[in-house]
Structures are given as structure tokens and as C-alpha cells.
């Protein structure tokens, strides 16, 4: 059984809500199956916060073993590097995280805030916050790039705002059950970050034939005009449906790239920057010349049912 301690730093509780939404495995089944023992979770534990203080002390002194440290929320260093914008019992949370992470077998940054800084790190970054081992897309955050947890892993980044429910509980299960955790260049588990949001999007055919929406509320592709980052964002949103139901792009909401280190992008989130007719940022790995040639052909080849936007949303 793996012991797990969950800390909230500069968080909105969105990842905690996502954790509670996971259905397979659910948190309660991980507990019931004997995979996870929750030493502390701020929304679930019944003990007063003095219990957390005791746990921190014991873990720090090496008197109690910690297998998995989960951190939710951006790591706040303000004001002036003291971290006191976010404290627990007069001690900056960043110091507590640093102390606990040094004792943990594995450290999970749950959500883009803990992984990369997230929304609070967007300009002007009023709290001087960062991610645990990344600052947006720059390697090195609260920890430098060489930092490793006791099991030899860097901070495992579960990107997402919030993280997909199954990405949280499956990662916990992988660690608890001793399964291998392979990471990508941003230290995200490849098991959940091995495809683009674009894959599995029900609006794909509109993209193939370059049938573009210019207004929200429509049925067609949102990549060309409405800021959708589905073709450039690694995430499982369209293969592991959210809440077992849908995904943002299926519902007509552009993908804002929330699993990526640079979320949220600077500038208008609902507008696609273009050079002429072609987006500045193309789908991953596509060359501009080929794309321009393909785009015109595709538009000409679009069948009426697609041009008329008669497909289901």
C-alpha cells in the first residue's frame, strides 16, 4: 500500500474536484483495494490541521515514509522570494513542499499550476509563482532540472487545467502497483500524453476539408479562426471523454491548450494568429508549404454535407 499526501499550494481545488470525479479507478476504490493510503488530503481528511503539521514533521525527520507526494496549485514565491503569500503555520508552503519532496519516493504535480505555473503565472504573474520543475516551458522551476525524488524520477507532471480525472487516479495506481511510468519531454506520463486533442475530435472532418467557423456556436473546425489548439496540444481529452461524456472541442469550445507548459497563451485566447490564410502555428510536424497546398485542395474537395455543416456537433 502506497502512502499518499496531498498538499494544496496556490490552488483553486479544481484538481481535487477532478480527483473526486474519477470513476475507474475512483479514489475510493484505490483506497478500498489497498493501493493507496491517504495520509492527508485537505478536503477529505477529518483530523484538524495540527495533524498535517505533525505529519510534515515526521516525514521531514524521516520518521514516517512517504511514497507519493501530490501537489496541487502553483508554487508561490512572492513577495520578494519569501513565499509568504502562501503559508502554513507561518512557514512558506514552498519550503514545506521542498522538504516533503526530498523524502518522497515519487512527486506528482497535479495540474498545470503545479507542473508549469498555470493561470496564476500568466503575465503579470502577481504572486511570482512557478511550477515545481518547470517555469512555463522553461525547464527548472522551484527545483532545478537535475532534481530527482527518492525513486530517481523527476517531478511527474500531470498537465491539465484541471488534470483529467483518470490521468490522476491511473497515475496513482501505476505508482502504487509498481508499473513503469514513462515520461515525455515535459515530464508528463506518455501513457496519457501520447496523442493530440485533435485526434478523436468529432470535428476532424471539417478540419480535413478546411471548413472553418468564424463565430463560436457553430459546428465546424475552430482551429483556423477561433484559437483552437487541438492540433498542437498533447492530451487525451478526445479519447478518454471527460466525465464519461464529452470534450471541450466536441461541445464547441476551442481547446485552449491547458495541458501545455505555456497555458494560457498570451494574447486573445479566441483568435488564431494567421499569416495570410494560414495559422502561424500549424498542426504538430506539418510543413507550411505542404499545408498551404493541401488547404486549397481540401477546400475544393469538401463535400456538400460538410460545407453545409450538417454533421452532428
Amino acid at each position: 500500500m502506497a502512502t499518499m499526501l496531498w498538499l494544496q499550494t496556490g490552488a483553486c481545488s479544481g484538481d481535487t474536484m477532478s480527483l473526486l470525479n474519477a470513476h475507474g479507478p475512483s479514489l475510493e476504490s484505490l483506497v478500498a483495494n489497498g493501493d493507496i493510503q491517504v495520509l492527508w488530503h485537505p478536503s477529505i481528511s477529518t483530523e484538524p490541521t495540527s495533524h498535517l503539521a505533525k505529519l510534515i514533521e515526521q516525514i521531514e525527520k524521516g520518521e514516517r515514509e512517504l511514497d507519493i507526494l501530490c501537489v496541487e496549485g502553483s508554487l508561490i514565491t512572492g513577495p520578494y522570494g519569501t513565499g509568504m503569500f502562501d503559508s502554513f503555520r507561518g512557514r512558506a508552503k514552498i519550503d514545506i513542499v521542498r522538504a516533503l519532496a526530498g523524502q518522497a519516493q515519487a512527486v506528482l504535480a497535479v495540474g498545470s499550476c503545479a507542473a508549469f505555473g498555470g493561470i496564476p503565472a500568466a503575465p503579470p504573474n502577481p504572486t511570482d509563482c512557478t511550477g515545481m520543475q518547470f517555469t512555463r516551458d522553461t525547464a527548472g522551476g522551484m527545483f532545478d532540472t537535475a532534481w530527482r525524488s527518492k525513486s530517481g524520477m523527476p517531478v511527474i507532471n500531470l498537465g491539465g487545467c484541471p488534470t483529467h480525472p483518470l490521468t490522476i487516479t491511473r497515475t496513482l495506481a501505476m505508482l502504487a502497483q509498481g508499473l513503469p511510468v514513462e515520461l515525455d519531454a515535459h515530464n508528463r506520463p506518455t501513457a496519457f500524453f501520447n496523442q493530440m486533442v485533435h485526434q478523436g475530435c468529432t470535428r476532424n472532418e471539417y478540419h480535413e476539408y478546411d471548413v472553418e467557423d468564424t463565430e463560436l456556436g457553430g459546428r465546424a473546425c475552430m482551429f483556423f479562426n477561433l484559437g483552437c489548439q487541438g492540433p498542437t496540444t498533447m492530451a487525451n481529452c478526445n479519447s478518454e471523454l471527460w466525465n464519461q461524456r464529452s470534450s471541450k472541442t466536441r461541445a464547441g469550445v476551442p481547446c485552449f491548450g491547458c495541458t501545455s507548459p505555456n497555458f494560457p497563451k498570451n494574447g486573445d485566447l479566441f483568435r488564431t494568429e494567421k499569416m495570410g490564410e494560414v495559422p502561424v502555428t500549424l498542426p504538430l510536424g506539418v510543413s507550411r508549404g505542404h499545408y498551404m497546398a493541401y488547404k486549397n485542395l481540401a477546400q475544393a474537395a469538401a463535400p456538400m454535407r460538410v460545407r453545409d455543416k450538417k454533421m452532428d456537433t
Partner: protein
Amino acid sequence: MARKTVNIELNRVEGDLEFQVDLEGDRVADARCIGTLFRGFEQLLIGRAPKDALVITPRVCGICGTAHLFTTALALERMNDVPVPAHATIIRNLCLMAENVQSDIRQTFLFFAPDLLNPRYADHALAPALEKAFKPLQGSVVLSALDVSRTLVEIVAIFGGQWPHSTYMIPGGVTRPATVSDIIDCREIVDKAVRWFEKEVVGDSLDNWLSLDTAERFLEWVDEPAHRDTALGLFTRFARDQGLHTYGAGTDQFLSAGAHYDPVEWQAPYGEQRTLLAGGVYDGATHKIEAFRPELITEHVRHSWYRPYPDGRHPFEGETVPDYQPESDRYSWAKAPRYDDRVVETGPLAELLTGGDALIVDLLKKEGANTWLRQFARLRRASVLLDLMRAQLKALSQELNNPHYLAPADGSLDDGDGFGFVQAARGTLGHWVQVRNGEITRYQIVTPTAWNASPKDSAGRHGHWEQSVIGLPLTDIDNPIEISHVVRSHDPCLVCTVHFVGAGKKVRYGV
């Protein structure tokens, strides 16, 4: 008598809260509600495109992101009276109701109920039954509540793609229309939740339960064999046995901006709130309701760590300039919102009082505001909303061929002042936005928890939570469970009291 200052240990609070009380003997003589986190969300919005607020404000709070999204859409629409079709208003209502019921269920059974298992109550006759029902992650009611709450937010996922944190409400409507399948799927989800509520929570049909309209009838009903051992029966019998219905009143002014928009009546040009459950300010002394007037809202900073200004300011005039001075009589990063210079309570109790729920009104008249009633109102509100969701689904089925989105006229989001209100899970939420030349120049958010958890204002009036514990006698200073009950009955959510910043732990004696 010598004063002793103690810090109250609380967890299961969304965000970081320190609650400090001064005791005289065993009685609370003064109270200070302090947050320990600053995230600066309002500052992130300055200079951004107006619609970006639809992506950023839901992230203020992972629990009530739908409420923030809805409020942002309303504020942007009001800037230049952007029309919104009934189809969209119904979908927005349904999603907000799903989010609120989810929150009510989780708050009650995951956050409030565990305190009923406090060691203080170990010898109580109901202790074994409470343990069986409410043990965290294991109790029968807790497990089924988790299941039904995660099912309910599937409604948001159907229309918005995911919960939490999505951006499907946009000025002029929603991003996708409802389909026949959606109606069937949503009905199935609501019906499942209703069946759960009937079986686990009340032990009666929703109609019977909602028809209870007097304190007397309710108290007889809850003692009947079919109802006494349900979740509500256990909670009510135990809480009342422990006297939770006799303390924790706080202010007697209750604020609701009105809950859920009337899809037909809510039309541009936007004037007064037109909602399915009426809003207003309910006076607990006279039992009269006055109309809600947004212009009467001000925020004070006299006891907050902000650059001082005299009296209060309307959010359109508001400023948020940090001025941290720990060794002064200022003690919180929350501002103190006031309505017509009055301290008000907001939340499900206020929502049902102004909305005219006969049972809640009668209980208030008989017993006054109290800790049990506040928590009871939350469960009552969940059932009122489940009933309303069925009605909204019926209305939605009539809108399938009508537009879900009307593109706003060119330039209508480029300049203007707008504001909006919704009834979030924890009470009245307001956003105020000012846009100049296509950029946000000011964004102010007044959250439900800011109303309830505010510090003292310019006139020295305590915030509502503070008032609700002052005068309270504690049985055991080392285990002040009474304070936990009172504070938690407000469903504390500090993450969305967006101004907060850190304060060190202090224990002072003999002050």
C-alpha cells in the same frame, strides 16, 4: 477577565483559512477570520481581451467555475445589452443547478458530516449509525453521495465538454445546442439523483418532502420510522440533540440576487434581475423582503491589508492595492462587502428565504437563524433544484429548434461597463467589468465567501462569520467543535476570496 487568543484548526475548507478567537472564560469574546493565500486573479485580467475572462474566471474556483463563467457572460452581455436566447439561458441554468447540487451534496456529506464523528460525540447513542453513514470515503451515504455528485456534473460535460473548468457560455448564448439525446441523457441523470435523494436522504418522495411547509409538520415527519434513520433524519436528530439549532445566527440580513434566470423574462435591455427564485434582502427581524439593488453594494478595506480609503466603495470604483501591515489592527486580505452599509449573510438559507420556501421561512420564524438550519437549507436547496431541473428540461425540449446563440453585434464587447450576478453554490456572486478599446481595464469579483467571511468594516462592524461565533460558549477549548459546526455550515470556500495573502500563525495569551 483575562483574554486568551486561540487559533481554531480547520480543514476541509476550500482554500486556506485561519480563524482566530479571543476567549473570556469559555466564551468567544471576539473573532477574526483570516485567509492565508493570495492569487491575484483580478490583476491577471487587466489588459486582456474581454472574452478571455470566460477562460480565466472559471479557474478562480474549481468547485463553482460554472457560476463564475455564467457571471462573466452576464457581465459582458450587459455592457451593451447583447441579447441571449431562451435556449441558452435554460442550458446555463441547468449546468449551474447541476454544479450547485453537486456542491451541496459534497459539502454536506464530505465536509460537514465528518464533524458529527468528532471524539466529543463518541458515546452518543447515534454514534454507530453516524459512523456507518458518514465515515469519510467509507460510509454508505458518503460513497453514494460521491457517486451521484460525479454523475450530476455529467450534465455540464454534455453541454460544456467537461467539468470543472470549461467555457461553453459565451456572450450571446452557448457553444452548442441541445439535442433530443441530451434531453434523454439529462433526464436520466436527474432522475438518478432524485431516486438517490428520495432513498438515502429523506426516505420519502420528492413531492411529499417538498410539500412540508411548517416547522411543526417537519418535526413530526422527521421522527417517523421511514425518515428517522435516513441521512437527513440522522443529521437532523443528532444536530438538534446537540443544540446546533440554538447557536451560530450571525446577522439577521439575508442576501440573494435571485437564483437562475427566467428564460423568457430575462431579455435585453437588462434591468432588474428576472429569476426563477426571487432575490432580495430578507430581514430576519421583520420577515419582510426588500428588492435587491446592486448599486447599494460597497466594499470596505479598513481592516484589510489594502491601501486605505474611507468608508466603502462600489466595485466599479474599487481598487485592490496591497498594503501588508501585519502589526496593526488590520488582519485580512478579504475586503468587507456591505449592502446598504449592512452586514449580510448569503447562501442557500438566504436563497430559500427570498425565494419563499415555506418550510425554511417558518423554521426561521420559530427558531431564528442557526447552524443546523443553515446546513439543513443546503440539503433543502439541493432538492428544490432537482425539482427545478426537471422543469427546465421540459422547457428545453420546447427550444430544440430555436437558436442557442445569437452572434453579438460588431463592437458590442469592445467598450462598456457591465456586471452580472448568479446564485453560486455558496451564495450571491457578482462580477463587474469595464472594457475600453477592446481591453479589460477593471475586473472586480465579490464572492459569496467574501460576504460571509468578511473582516470588520470602516464602522467596526464584524463580518457575518465573526458575528456568528461571538458570544458562543465552548465546552472544550482544546476541541472547539462548536466553531467548526458554525463555520462549516457556511460552506467555507477561501480559494475564491481572491484577494487573500499570507499571515503567520499567532497564539497570544493575556491580550
